[in-house]
């Protein structure tokens, strides 16, 4: 059995850095495109609604693992060479935008029709109606589900290992193979994931509780 020294810990820390970066890229990219998806999904134009619905079905109906493969090898097949992390970032962005889009679609539709009518009666246009009136309320309603998805996304970044990306889980595997102490290493890796995800889950649950109380 090998000892766990500074090098091993540093290697895990490198992995953690990529896990966090991937999560942030996926969440931010997914947030931007997801907003577009949510708006298209609630649009008055049926072509937009249907396109967005199709997009959501595809990404919700296939495994993230497969999405990673398709983007990683698919882009290479197109003759464009990009780095692994770029491909992974694109795949996570597409994946997250479908899920966030659907979550926020629900939030938008949960806002009473009277809000849109009042905004219309005041002469507000689509942009202001959405930006000032509907979306701030919709995001608030969707916040617990959004945080829940973020937690899924953080854990989901471990799948990036499959295309050769060394994030936290893969880094753990490598260190474990070198030191022959899988239980300890994966214990540490698991503890790191837990330390990130659990406070988020807790925060989400608390928010949900508070909203349930406010609605009573």
């Amino acid at each position, binding site marked *: 059995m090998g000892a766990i020294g500074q090098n091993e810990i540093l290697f895990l820390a490198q992995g953690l850095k990529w896990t966090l970066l991937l999560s942030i890229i996926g969440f931010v990219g997914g947030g931007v495109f997801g907003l577009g998806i949510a708006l298209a999904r609630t649009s008055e134009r049926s072509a937009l609604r249907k396109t967005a619905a199709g997009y959501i079905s595809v990404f919700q109906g296939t495994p993230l693992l497969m999405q990673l493969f398709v983007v990683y090898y698919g882009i290479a097949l197109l003759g464009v060479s990009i780095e692994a992390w770029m491909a992974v970032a694109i795949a996570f962005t597409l994946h997250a935008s479908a899920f966030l889009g659907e979550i926020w679609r629900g939030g938008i539709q949960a806002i009473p029709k*009277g*809000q849109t009518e009042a905004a*219309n*009666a*005041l*002469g507000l*246009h689509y942009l202001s109606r959405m930006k*000032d*009136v509907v979306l701030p*309320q919709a995001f608030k309603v969707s916040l617990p589900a959004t945080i829940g998805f973020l937690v899924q996304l953080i854990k989901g970044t471990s799948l990036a290992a499959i295309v050769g990306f060394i994030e936290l889980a893969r880094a753990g595997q490598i260190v474990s193979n070198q030191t022959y102490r899988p239980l300890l290493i994966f214990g540490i890796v698991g503890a790191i994931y837990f330390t990130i995800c659990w406070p988020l889950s807790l925060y989400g649950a608390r928010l949900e509780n508070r909203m349930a109380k406010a609605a009573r």
Partner: protein
Amino acid sequence: MLHAADTQSPLLSMEAVDKWYGAFHALKNINLTVRKGEKIVLCGPSGSGKSTLIRCINALEKIEKGTIMVEGTKLDDSGKSIDAVRREVGMVFQSFNLFPHMTILENCTLAPMRVRGTGKAEAEKIARKYLERVRILDQADKFPAQLSGGQQQRVAIARALCMEPKAMLFDEPTSALDPEMVKEVLDTMIGLARDGMTMICVTHEMGFARQVADRVIFMASGEIIEEAPPETFFRNPSHPRTQAFLGEILAHH
């Protein structure tokens, strides 16, 4: 009568308006002219089309046939005509529909800033003026949920007034209120009427109709059945359906 209505060209007119919801004929051949400063009360049994009628005026509902003119603008499908009409016509809803995530003041400044391009300071000045007028200025920094129903509805009136509309539509403004709060909202509306605002009110408050209306219009099954000044309307309703309706609601009041 509080204010003699102007005899000039109409502020608002509906000509041969028909509306369907699928197979349901919601409005049948509606003809209505409202002059500047006139106060109209619309009443009738539920489902008679009175709310639908006023919601057509500011294009919250689309009409299938006929013409609606507001201040010389013919309402059609173009965003331009809808914008023009909504700038001139304010609306107050049964369920207030204040924006719950904004303060009272923000509720009132949003539309002037976004639609008219008014600066923030100026918009706030206007908002304070109208909040003062509905006697709720001291609540300006609170959120809607912190106010009573009557207070919320008065804010909703102020919010509409901040756009300085030429006419106001009221869609059963007191129906969602507890009885003790009806008066404060009606008093606000009476004040508005005294100041010469053109008003179309869907309401069952017959005391308000008597006191304020220039004309009372009775609707049933999507049609205008009877139209008369309040004295005539309440004393000598000519149509049997009006008589039956008045008999019913006055018995309860």
